[in-house]
């Protein structure tokens, strides 16, 4: 049984059809890619899966449970972590706080602990902190743990976002253009990190990406989206040679 299965999902914004009859099945440990021109509806699909929008039609099933109708935080706690296209970090918080906050749903000490500073709270906070440090070390950003995020360079911010998404211990990680705006060195590093995540943590990864090289390197299968519809699906080689993909994504030849 696939980890995540999306069946016949359709979504309208007002009268505008943003996603049409979308299907997806991801197995545990798989890395899949989603490509398509700007405005094709890729991010909308992410937002639908994570509960920010509610699909007009269709089902989203994670581990046999239909996610439609749940709040974003509930879906996140069920095991879907994500990053955002335009970094959505909490600008006044430190790196460490970011990673700790992603474990919010797993905190047990409750309000009493928060208000009165019980021993249990300190134990649990220390435990979360230790985990957070381990994660930051894995991403190679533990040296900035106590810095406020907005002062960090862009590549590091991207990693913070990734670490934050991992801290919620997802089964499935959605990455929205993880390498956007990175320079070549940062890019190779990020690809490395994504591989490492897949290998060490065994997560399923679903990623939107613009850079063909990255998608082709990382993904086992790729979907191509245009105007809210999947126009092609297959291995990187198949996608690369598909004429419809070339038309839609790379721009038509011989326009002038």
């Amino acid at each position, binding site marked *: 049984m696939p980890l995540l299965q999306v069946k016949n999902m359709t979504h309208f914004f007002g009268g505008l059809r943003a996603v049409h009859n979308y299907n997806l099945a991801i197995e545990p440990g798989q890395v899949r890619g989603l490509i398509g021109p700007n405005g094709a509806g890729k991010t909308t699909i992410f937002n639908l899966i994570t509960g920010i929008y509610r699909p007009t039609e269709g089902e989203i099933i994670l581990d046999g449970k239909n996610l439609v109708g749940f709040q974003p*935080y509930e879906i996140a706690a069920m095991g879907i972590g994500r990053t955002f296209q335009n970094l959505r970090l909490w600008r006044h918080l430190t790196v460490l706080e970011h990673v700790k906050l992603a474990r919010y749903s797993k905190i047990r000490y409750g309000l009493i602990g928060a208000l009165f500073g019980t021993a249990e709270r300190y134990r649990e906070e220390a435990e979360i902190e230790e985990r957070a440090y381990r994660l930051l070390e894995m991403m190679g950003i533990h040296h900035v743990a106590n810095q406020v995020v907005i002062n960090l360079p862009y590549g590091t911010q991207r990693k913070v976002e990734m670490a934050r998404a991992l801290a919620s211990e997802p089964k499935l990680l959605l990455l929205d253009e993880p390498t956007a705006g990175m320079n070549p060195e940062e890019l190779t590093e990020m690809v490395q990190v994504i591989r490492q995540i897949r290998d060490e943590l065994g997560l399923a990864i679903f990623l939107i990406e613009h850079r063909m090289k990255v998608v082709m390197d990382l993904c086992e299968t790729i979907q191509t989206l245009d105007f809210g519809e999947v126009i092609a699906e297959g291995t990187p080689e198949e996608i690369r040679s598909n004429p419809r993909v070339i038309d839609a994504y790379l721009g038509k030849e011989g326009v002038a």
Partner: protein
Amino acid sequence: MEVRGSTVSPAETMAGNALLDEVRAQLAQIPLLGWLCGTLLATAVEQTVGESLAKALSLPAIPGLFGLRIILSPLFEILLAVIQYRRDIPGLVASLKTIAPDLALIPGAVAFILLVYILPTLIVARLSAPLTNRLAKWLLDRFPLWVSLLLHLGLFYATLHLWGDISEYRMLILRFILISIILTLSLNLVNGYMGEFSCSHPGFMAMGAYASSVLTVLFFVNDDVFGAPLLPPAIGPFMFPLALIIGGLVASVGALAVAIPSFRTRGDYLAIISLAFMFIVKSVIENLEIIGGPRGFMNQPKWANLPIVFAWTAICVWMIYNFTRSTIGKASCAVRDDETAAGAMTINTRRTKMVTFLFAAFWAGVAGGLFAHVMGYINPGTFGVLKLSEVLAMVYLGGLNSVVGSIAGALGLQLLMEVLRPLELWKWIVIPILLIVLMIRRPTGLIAFTEVKIEDLLRPRQTLRSSAQVPGEGR
């Protein structure tokens, strides 16, 4: 290079800097414990020799607020006179003459501050530094944090008590400042930590004040309206905390009425709905004849003495400090900075906002209850737009998202209002102008987004090794 044109030679500035650095280095060695010992002694000095010293310095009495008013108000009076008699030179001279005696008091006041407060504090703090450092270290090493914290609080309270003991006026101001700290901190939770704009704090305060007053008067006071006390008044003071807590809970319930409609959607709804709520509370109270209506409600037992108010303030600061440092409390900052991301990171945004808001309202209610039992009289007019402006001003003066900021804001504005009291009307022009300038310079307040850890506050300031090489000890 850059010094051209300046009258001070580089050598001189360097010497000045060196001296300053030296002073700074000396002061940096004093732990909080040392400072507290110093201020405690200074207040003790004031207790014993204050009166005679004031007489010797030809001051009418011991200066109420560190002599600030004696020093500042003649200066403002001169300023006002100059504005008022711009073209009328004889008038100006005449009015300056009336100010002159006030002016003559300034040196005395300065000397008083120096002799009573600054010198004893500095000397004792510096002299005791080796000892207090060792003590602070021992306390932190041997015992849990709270032991050291309690000792510090005890010393601090003793200082406040000795200082306030001098006059009724000081006692009152102290309690007002402490209550303002509670209010400001709790509003900062909403406006700073949560990033919403709430206007209903005076309303919550009123609910707490009236609820706890009704309880105490009903149960422990022989009142015209409520009749004979239901319980023996002797146990009253022991039940007082309960009354305050119930007052706080009533305010929380009120907050629920604001929160449910306004947290459904994003935007400015909290600002508007909370504003309407504030007016409703005020107006409802005005219509309830049983609690005095617009005339106000009196006869509250004056149980909120300094130790009680101090204890509540300490508890409030401690709890809010705890809350804002916990991951659960930090969630509200995450919701503020990016709600979508917070949701995607498993944070229940709605619950987070609710909890923070109700918690803030609770403390506003407690502050109201304390206020009522300081004054022994409240009326609905107190809890209006003016109170709102005052609390908002304290929050934004001190700084958003900062416990220290709120304490500083409450203290600063209260002191400012007291010090500028001789200006009468003009006070309400000077203070707003100061605040506007501050807002333009630092839109989030003086100490925004800065937290001081209690551990850092209490820690010793010098290792024992370096204390041995400090020169000039005992000088």
